[in-house]
């Protein structure tokens, strides 16, 4: 319980900074609107204010600070605006509604989970191959590394277009982009984990005349479990990014990526920010689920203390 005080302090500081930033970010529009309604603004006229610094304007017109926190399309929405929007679109809307974030979240989540599953299985298979075959070690690893140097934004549209031209659309193309991002940490972590037993451990099994399969199942695989979970935590977050990026280039109408996209088309900054927060919360939940699995598994293995 003692750790809750510093955590809350940091959150409070962030929220305070955020509110403070809202004032200069939104002040020009607030001044224009207030002047139109007859308020006295210093200096007068939108044209005169155009090139003045936002912070200076905010300091000269403290009466309009309240207006900066209650606009429909602010440059920077205030925290409570985002919260209200989140509440509206998560709790109030029916989850079948096109405006429900739960609905859009599920679209993205399903692609994320499918891609994560594909990436994880693929990553494990590659890692096992790399550890057991020198040829694969030399040939696959450089490609795996090269694959991650290509910006995902550049390759995602091509994956969507190519798959679409062969008739694959919907969930799978997005999932494949997710898998493309999430297999890599699994490969790297599992290769390290499967190689983690030292020479003495391997010698010991040799004195029992253990087969390669037994070395794998009894030593290498259990030794790799802690590495595996560390990789999964990176992989699941990467998967989510992949699914969202996969929704952007197609002009998709469903999914968190689509919410971000339509929000930016129509200047709905509050919608963009609430979609961003929904994404962050979803990512945190996914990582928390993996952490829970990790704790349970390691405890059962006698590795958790």
């Amino acid at each position: 319980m003692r750790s809750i005080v510093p955590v809350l302090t940091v959150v409070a500081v962030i929220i305070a900074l955020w509110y403070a930033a809202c004032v200069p970010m939104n002040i020009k529009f607030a001044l224009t609107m207030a002047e139109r309604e007859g308020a006295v603004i210093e200096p007068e006229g939108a044209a005169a204010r155009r090139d003045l610094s936002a912070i200076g304007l905010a300091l000269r017109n403290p009466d309009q600070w309240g207006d900066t926190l209650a606009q429909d399309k602010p440059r920077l929405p205030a925290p409570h605006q985002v919260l209200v929007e989140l509440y509206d679109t998560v709790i109030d809307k029916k989850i079948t509604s096109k405006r429900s974030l739960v609905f859009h979240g599920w679209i993205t989540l399903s692609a994320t989970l499918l891609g994560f599953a594909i990436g994880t299985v693929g990553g494990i298979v590659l890692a096992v191959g790399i550890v057991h075959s020198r040829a694969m070690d030399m040939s696959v690893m450089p490609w795996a590394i090269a694959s991650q140097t290509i910006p995902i934004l550049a390759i995602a549209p091509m994956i969507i277009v190519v798959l679409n031209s062969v008739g694959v659309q919907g969930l799978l193309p997005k999932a494949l982009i997710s898998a493309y991002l999430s297999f890599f940490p699994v490969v790297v972590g599992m290769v390290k984990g499967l190689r983690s037993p030292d020479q003495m451990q391997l010698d010991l099994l040799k004195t029992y005349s253990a087969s390669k399969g037994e070395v794998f199942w009894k030593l290498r695989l259990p030794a790799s479990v802690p590495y595996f979970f560390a990789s999964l935590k990176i992989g699941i977050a990467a998967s989510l990014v992949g699914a969202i990026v996969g929704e952007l280039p197609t002009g998709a109408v469903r999914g968190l990526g689509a919410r971000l996209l339509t929000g930016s088309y129509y200047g709905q900054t509050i919608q963009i920010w609430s979609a961003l927060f929904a994404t962050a919360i979803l990512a945190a939940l996914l990582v928390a689920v993996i952490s829970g699995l990790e704790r349970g598994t390691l405890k059962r293995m006698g590795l958790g203390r």
Partner: protein
Amino acid sequence: MSQATVIEAKHLDLTFQTADGPVQALRDVNLSIAQGDFVSFIGPSGCGKTTFLRCVAALETPTGGTLTVNGMTPDEARRKRAYGYVFQAAGLYPWRTIAKNIKLPLEIMGFSKAEQEERVARVLDLVDLSGFGGKFPWQLSGGMQQRASIARALAFDADLLLMDEPFGALDEIVRDHLNEELLKLWARTGKTIGFVTHSIPEAVYLSTKIVVMSPRPGRITDVIESPLPKERPLDIRDTPEFLEIAHRVREGLRAGHAYD
């Protein structure tokens, strides 16, 4: 003691090819170990004592001479599971309980479940760890972990026990205790034991035969048959016989050790 020969080395050579050129780890090693012997290998680091043990275990391959274990090549003997090997570190799997660690070789060697249980109980008793089977390794002290690793090597009833500085990382009090236990265990089981150490008292206290080795290249400088009785209380280490053997070992080590 005119029993069967377990280990027979004749003109054994082993040269490692390293980046700095060949390194002769063993040169012209001749040794015969009979069944029931407790043989210690003693010498400074780099004298090839561990390498010799690893040759016997078929973890290294000699480059010259002959080496037989139970009349077979070391590799055949390994496949027949002729020996149990105890390493310097306990090397227990942290994700297995003590009982499950001891079951590891039994699983690989295909013992039935019932037989596994029975053997685990027996060897745990043998190393005085009954009741600790359900603990994880980190819950045990270093000495207890090493005893568990000895139990693991005993579980499948190999007649030959190869021990590579098994107590090297333990403090002297624990080591004395484990030495005593090991002698009792040896008396009870009648196994042949090859034991690498760099402690003179340990070697003299435990062994029926002490092999003194020296480095660069690794070779045997002296083989001492111990006249000490099989029954050895700890205070035998203060007797003149004991000190005389210890003296001879020290002389052997000094003779082989060129301080160049």
